């Protein structure tokens, strides 16, 4: 036994890995902090960092304090809720992508693939057409996202078993159907009434964020994230093939649906307040895998930090780059698609070299 005990002690190489990971965590947190401050200070009306910190500190000490100065009103009423919402949404979307890619054993999977995003978009378009905003809109969006997911589940279940391929195919079918329904609503909507609202909303934006809207979305985002994070080791098990996962005591089918429901909660919450923001769930987990490897116990938390930093940064660019605000969903796709293409090439080149 003594020889084993000696071998069991950590080797210098292991300690090196641990400190490398610690450095990545700290780096990601600093990056997020820097992006949050950039988001609060930059803009048409710029505020310097010490003043921003002072304003936030005063408001934390006394949340009910009257906001008289213009910079106080901009920071507390406009930028803080916007940056917070972008950070939570980015973190939650990145976590959703990482979790889905794990359970599908496929690096190309995102909430779009399951039809959740399209279902949620349909719900939002209906709500806007009916003139519904706020919590009822969230309820309709979440319900439609979940309905899309349930439909996928129903279609994919053949003879009491769901296979991953049939889930992906059903997701594409349901997604295409809901996309068509969204087009139909756009066609029916009054061009002088709800149509522009629907179109802008579908392009995705945090521009209309208020504390009230943030409060609507953040609980769902946080619940989804916390549960996905709590299941980070289980995600390693679920990323194995079905027989192996079962032999290790998991119930892959049931647990997969639990993950899907959490993703629907996250996507529904995010879509309800900021429209369709794509690509985060693909780009961030891939980039994170290059940094910390595939183990979900590290992939999930680091993806959340980087996803939050990324979306806050993109949102800041969206509202500062030009005089008119660029829709966020357009930017995340413009940045996301080429970056993702590069990451994917890198991924397969490395795998072929293995």
């Amino acid at each position, binding site marked *: 036994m003594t020889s*084993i005990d000696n*071998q*069991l002690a950590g*080797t210098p*190489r*292991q300690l090196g*890995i641990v400190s490398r990971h610690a450095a990545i965590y700290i780096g990601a947190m600093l990056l997020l902090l820097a992006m949050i401050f950039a988001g609060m200070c930059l803009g048409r009306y710029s505020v310097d960092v010490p003043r921003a910190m002072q304003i936030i500190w005063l408001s934390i000490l006394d949340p009910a304090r009257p906001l008289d100065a213009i910079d106080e009103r901009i920071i507390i009423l406009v930028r803080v809720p916007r940056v917070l919402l972008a950070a939570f949404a980015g973190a939650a979307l990145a976590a959703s992508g990482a979790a889905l890619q*794990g359970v599908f*054993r496929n690096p190309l999977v995102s909430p779009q693939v399951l039809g959740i995003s399209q279902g949620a978009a349909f719900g939002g378009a209906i709500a806007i057409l009916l003139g519904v905003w706020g919590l009822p809109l969230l309820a309709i969006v979440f319900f439609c996202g979940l309905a899309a997911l349930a439909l996928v589940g129903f279609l994919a279940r053949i003879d009491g078993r769901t296979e991953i391929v049939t889930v992906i195919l059903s997701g594409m079918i349901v997604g295409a159907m809901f996309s068509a329904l969204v087009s139909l609503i756009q066609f029916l909507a009054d061009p002088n009434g709800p149509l522009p609202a629907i179109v802008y909303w579908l392009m995705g934006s945090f521009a209309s964020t208020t504390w009230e809207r943030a409060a609507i979305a953040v609980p769902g985002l946080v619940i989804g994230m916390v549960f996905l994070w*709590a*299941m*980070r*080791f*289980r995600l*390693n*098990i679920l*990323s*194995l*093939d*079905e*027989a*192996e996962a*079962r*032999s*290790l*005591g*998991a119930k892959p089918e049931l*647990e997969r649906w639990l993950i899907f429901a959490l993703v629907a909660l996250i996507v529904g919450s995010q879509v309800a307040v900021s429209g369709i923001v794509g690509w985060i769930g693909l780009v961030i987990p891939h980039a994170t*895998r290059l940094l910390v*490897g*595939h*183990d979900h*116990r590290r992939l999930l938390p680091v993806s959340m930090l980087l996803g939050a930093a990324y979306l806050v940064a993109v949102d800041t660019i969206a509202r500062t780059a030009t005089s008119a605000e660029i829709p966020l969903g357009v930017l995340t796709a413009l940045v996301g698609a080429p970056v993702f293409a590069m990451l994917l090439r890198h991924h397969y080149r490395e795998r072929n070299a*293995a």
Partner: protein
Amino acid sequence: MISLEKASVRFGPRTVLDQLSVKVEVGQSLAILGPNGRGKTTALRAMLGFQPLSGGTRTAPEIVGYVPQAAGINQRYSVLDVVVMGRAARLGLFGQPQAADFDAAREVLAEVGLLHFAEAMFDRLSGGERQLVLLARALATGSNVLVLDEPAAALDLKNQERLLSLLGKIRAKGDKAIIFTTHDPNHAFAAADDALLMLPGAAVLSGPVHETITAKHLEALYGVSMRLVDMPGPNGDMHRAVLPAFAGKVAA
């Protein structure tokens, strides 16, 4: 202990398993032999509880240590992370492996002789090493039943030897019921007490290896004529080997 009692499996009109009864006690090792497509894998899946039975009953512990033919891992995990997955059943849905779980994982890695690979990436290992890591993961479950699906099928001779001697070591400890499928009757002689022959058609033969694996039975099993030879080992004990008549070369 793991057992099937009159287990039947039907896929539509096709009966793959017909009233199969198998029982392996702790301390025993069973080799399952049969031609391709005869239902070895189905039998194994039935024992693991992955294959719903059309009839009959299965008795098994909740967790059965399972070594698949090839790893279904397409992510890049370290060897230690793969082995510690064996502890998942006791960690539950939201559990995280703790220091004690990693210690247990290192211990079974040492048992299969791969502790020096603990921090290596699983997908960079050779096929033989991966098989041993999967065996370590099955051991890490702590189950007293071990099921291996053609563990040596894709391995070269050196790695076959490594795997079989490891199985022999585990078997000698006497605290596991071991079941494995194989195409090579020599593996059954090397690492099993009993053999189950799934003959073409629906018949099965089972019993101690030396009674079950005979030239006549093997010919019926594979449709290839066979010779069994006994050679004395260094200690005077007899080793039995199987010589199939490949390319028409029949041994005298």
